[in-house]
């Protein structure tokens, strides 16, 4: 149970777990030691000044107002004025710096989480709902954010004020102090009872919120299907189940959190009454003055207020920890192993599959003992029925996945010795699912090579036969595309993806059903450009269309993850 992430909802908060999480957050905070130190100095000052205020007020009543000492009172009031001004200035400054520290921490945390996403293997994303992962970047981190803004100052000033109040109270009257301190054990047990309920509920709440987020994302991105199949009611129904779970977890978390100020209030008020009672009796016996009682009730409040704050902050922290654990959960997920050489000289384009076997899950082999060799400049066509392993070969070439057995060699070097990024930076891709970004057409094509000029982008679009339809769009190359790709057709999206690959100008080209949604006449037009593009490069092509396959130097026919036939088009056709 030491590792975060395994909570069943009714598990009691794990102290070791929590302190580990807090330590990790602390590590981020400590990156800004200087400002943090300054803030802490301000907190100390403001706590001191906060204590000085009522002390001087009490003095004013006891020593000057009651006795009618005008000059003394003026002096004291002047001092008090300074204290108040200082207090406001200092408490402004502490917050001013703290917000910066907190938000920079949140920024870094979010950034690290994002960076980690990019180090995770592709398989990590295969079975997770996007919206659930998004919730960690927004909702969970937002939870941490709001806590950090205020909690650290409140905790620090709470502790200081507490220590100060106890010291002054002891000085004023040890007996009354003892009465006041009776609150602490009561509070301790009360808090323990409350937080053992809120802690797990906070975690549940964040989990359900993530779940809901995941559902919403999926529901919205598949809205056309939902509409088509008239499934709105069912979607709403499923949503409501998740909504209900979130409501229940949220209710318990909030109701019990609401206990804390009430608990502190009753302790506070009772304390006030007890002090007044005991103080009154003491005063009767001449053991205390009226002024002492007034000051004391004031301090008792000063004393319970930080206790109240600390109790609330502890609870808020539990809620932040619930968010943070979900963030760290991801960060603790193992990165994809991508050691290998980070920088490699330009490849010639020789590719060898040497007895490669692969399975996504351990059970079913997608590829078994696949071997072939591509010389630099070869065009390899992969054919075979759906599910025979064509795309898997592409995935392995791109090192999205690693083979379970066998080796893939690039220019005779084992792919494991080259980093995936170094390898992919020499490859160009047109993937099966066309991805466009919420950017202009221009930027979407430029994604292939970030330093390409506008002219180069347009040239690539021309070659991909995309220029004419882009020109017809309302704002040409500056037209914004939507993420869901509405506004342009599937075939046009593929043309953009091809333009992107043309612009990338790679050594190795991978085209996975690159033209499947493009009509064959348009395809003929881009064939020429593709032909030019493939010249002198090794290319791997998955296609169903004859005229694409015919031009291949080698055709590999796959069936059930095995090579059924390999050779020239005529040879493979004859092998049937």
């Amino acid at each position, binding site marked *: 149970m030491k590792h975060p992430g395994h909570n069943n909802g009714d598990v009691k908060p794990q102290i070791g777990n929590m302190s580990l999480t807090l330590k990790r957050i602390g590590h981020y905070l400590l990156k800004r030691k200087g400002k943090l130190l300054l803030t802490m100095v301000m907190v100390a000052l403001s706590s001191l000044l906060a204590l000085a205020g009522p002390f001087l007020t009490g003095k004013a009543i006891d020593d000057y107002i009651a006795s009618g000492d005008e000059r003394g009172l003026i002096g004291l009031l002047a001092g008090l004025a300074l204290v108040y001004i200082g207090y406001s200035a200092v408490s402004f400054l502490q917050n001013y710096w703290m917000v910066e520290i907190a938000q920079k921490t949140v920024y870094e945390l979010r950034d690290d989480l994002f960076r980690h*996403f990019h180090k995770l293997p592709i398989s990590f994303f295969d079975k997770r709902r996007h919206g659930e992962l998004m919730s960690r970047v*927004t909702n969970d981190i937002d939870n941490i954010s709001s806590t950090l803004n205020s909690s650290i100052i409140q905790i620090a000033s709470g502790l200081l004020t507490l220590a100060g109040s106890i010291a002054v109270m002891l000085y004023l009257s040890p007996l009354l102090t003892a009465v006041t301190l009776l609150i602490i054990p009561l509070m301790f047990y009360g808090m323990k009872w409350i937080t053992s309920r809120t802690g797990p509920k906070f975690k549940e709440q964040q989990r359900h919120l993530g779940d809901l987020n995941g559902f919403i994302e999926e529901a919205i991105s598949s809205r056309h299907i939902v509409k088509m199949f008239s499934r709105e009611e069912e979607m709403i129904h499923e949503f409501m189940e998740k909504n209900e779970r979130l409501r229940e977890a949220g209710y318990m978390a909030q109701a019990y959190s609401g206990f804390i100020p009430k608990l502190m209030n009753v302790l506070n008020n009772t304390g006030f009454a007890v002090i007044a009672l005991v103080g009154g009796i003491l005063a009767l016996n001449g053991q205390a003055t009226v002024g002492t009682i007034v000051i004391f009730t004031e301090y008792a409040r000063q004393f319970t207020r930080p206790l109240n704050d600390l109790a609330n902050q502890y609870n808020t922290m539990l809620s932040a920890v619930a968010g943070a654990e979900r963030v760290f959960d991801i960060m603790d997920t193992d990165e994809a192993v991508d050691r290998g050489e980070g920088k490699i000289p330009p490849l010639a384009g020789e590719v060898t599959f040497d007895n490669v076997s692969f399975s996504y899950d351990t059970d079913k082999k997608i590829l078994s003992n696949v071997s072939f060799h591509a010389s630099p400049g070869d065009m390899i066509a992969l054919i075979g029925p759906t599910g025979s392993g064509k795309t898997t070969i592409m995935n392995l070439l791109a090192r999205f996945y690693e083979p379970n057995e066998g080796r893939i060699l690039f220019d005779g070097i084992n792919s494991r010795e080259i980093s995936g990024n170094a390898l992919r930076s020499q490859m160009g891709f047109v993937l099966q699912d066309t*991805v466009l970004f919420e950017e202009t057409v221009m930027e979407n094509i430029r994604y292939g090579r970030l330093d390409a000029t506008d002219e180069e982008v347009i040239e690539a679009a021309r070659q991909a036969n995309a220029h004419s339809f882009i020109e017809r769009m309302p704002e040409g190359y500056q037209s914004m595309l939507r993420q869901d790709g509405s506004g342009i057709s599937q075939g046009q999206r593929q043309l953009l993806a091809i333009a992107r690959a043309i612009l990338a100008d790679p050594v190795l080209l991978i085209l996975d059903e690159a033209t499947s949604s493009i009509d064959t006449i348009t395809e003929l037009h881009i064939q020429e450009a593709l032909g030019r593009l493939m010249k002198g490069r090794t290319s791997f092509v998955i296609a169903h269309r004859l005229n694409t396959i015919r031009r291949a130097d080698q055709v590999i026919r796959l069936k059930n993850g095995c090579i059924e036939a390999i050779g020239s088009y005529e040879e493979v056709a004859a092998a049937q």
Partner: protein
Amino acid sequence: MNHVWALLVPYRLRMAAAWGLMLLELAVELVLPILMAKMIDDGIVAGEVNSILFWGSIMIGLSLFSFAAGITNSFIAARIGQNYGFDIRKKLIEKVQSFSFGQYGHFDTSTLITRMTNDVTQLQNAVFMSLRIMLRAPLMIIFGTAMALFVHFKLALVLLVTVPFMTFFMLFMMRRGAGMFRRVQIKLDKVNSVMRENLTGIRLIRAFVRSRYETSRFERAGKALMEDTIGVIRTFESIVPILMLVMNGGLLFILWLGFMEMQNGTATTGEIVAVINYAARIIISLSIFTFITLAFARGKASAVRINEVLAVDQEQLPAVTESYPAEGDLFLENVTFTYPGGKTPVLHSLSMRVERGSIAAILGETGSGKSALLSLIPRLYEPSEGRVAIGGRDVSQMDVRQLRRQIGFVPQESHLFTGSIIDNIRWGKKDATDEEVVEAAQKAQIHDTVLSLPDGYNTVIGQKGVTLSGGQKQRLSIARALVRQPDILLLDDSTSALDVKTEAALINAITSQNCTVLIVTQKVSTAEQADCIFMIEDGQIAASGTHRELARKNSLYRRLLESQGRGGGIHEASGS
């Protein structure tokens, strides 16, 4: 705002109860100093032990009473808060599900997600806070002032100056803050959107080695969010120091005035202590104002955003009570159509007729309007001119749900859901028996593939079916449409990844279904099996007829044939 606040109306009684309880609690707190003054004057000064004990125990009893009230309030408030959030999310999902295709364009997916989770949480928090503590502080100030005035009118007059000033100041800040928070939420949308793009495009990003570029994009979004957050929180953090300064100034004045009054014999020590006590309580309750104004401003900003979604008018569809079977010939008459937000029409007075039970193939260039044509039949969009009719009845006069229930639709991009294969197929018809599911899978030529998977029909596939091959995904979504046993089947280029043999078997199986089929395709081999082929060019029917007729008389069709490497009726390479 009306939509959002209207949802609070059902809770008005419970809200009143929560406020009532809060008032009780507050009343106790306010009465305590009076009782204390009484105890000092009657008990201590007069030397009456019984009086001290009497007042003391009343004070303790009252604080226990207020505790009970507080706890009850906490439960009620949590219930209302969570129910309110639940209701808003319910309204939002219902609204979003009712959006027409055009209306989805108003909101980006990621902003809808933020609004449905994060914004609801903010608003819910504001409501919960207002029921639990928010009103406490303002009421504390009002009652504190009133009580102080009651104790000693002249001394407390100062409060009448400072309190209104503070009120205006806070209202001003809240108004400003709401605007700032709206900007913060927009920045959060951006973070969400970049994150989402990275999740959906993870393969492409890895393929083009753009992790670093994406990270810098994310960092820009994160930094903008951080800067805006720091700005808004700093603004709010400045509120309390300013208020403190004003109130503390008032306190000094009270001390001075108290001294004068005492000199004149118009005030007692007890009175001065009581007024100071009230002033001190007011000051303490000030510290929560950062929190309150912040939560309110934030809640207000989120309420506006939620309201924007709820305020979208439901598109008025003519009320239809009768339902007609979607049987008979499918007929499009002079249909002109422009996508919402688009400038040029994609279909120009297009007319076509498809006989009941026949298979029609639609061919045309990329972007010629094929998908648009299909989307008009189930009324995903309404034509700008002309009409679509089934069996002589205008579809615009049919109940949308009824109509769609009789249509099976397979979109270009096969969109599957997180869940098992059987769930995904049954998605097409929720009460389909296992036999019906298997039958649909068999017809879609996916049954054998499913059986070969480790868990068969219970195999879980990830979002968008990432662990399946392109062809498998297409066939699954065909099965999903077939399980509905539709009268009309629309295939939007959804057989592109299938080999010829599988496709032929599929079309054969569909023929036995006895439904009208519209199939958009790029492949002549598919079109060949159709009863009638429609050639679309620039949104108009350029030609129609059987394969033989078109091959003889239509030049575009001939060019298509040639582009697919066939003069006559030879088969394609892949597959058989």
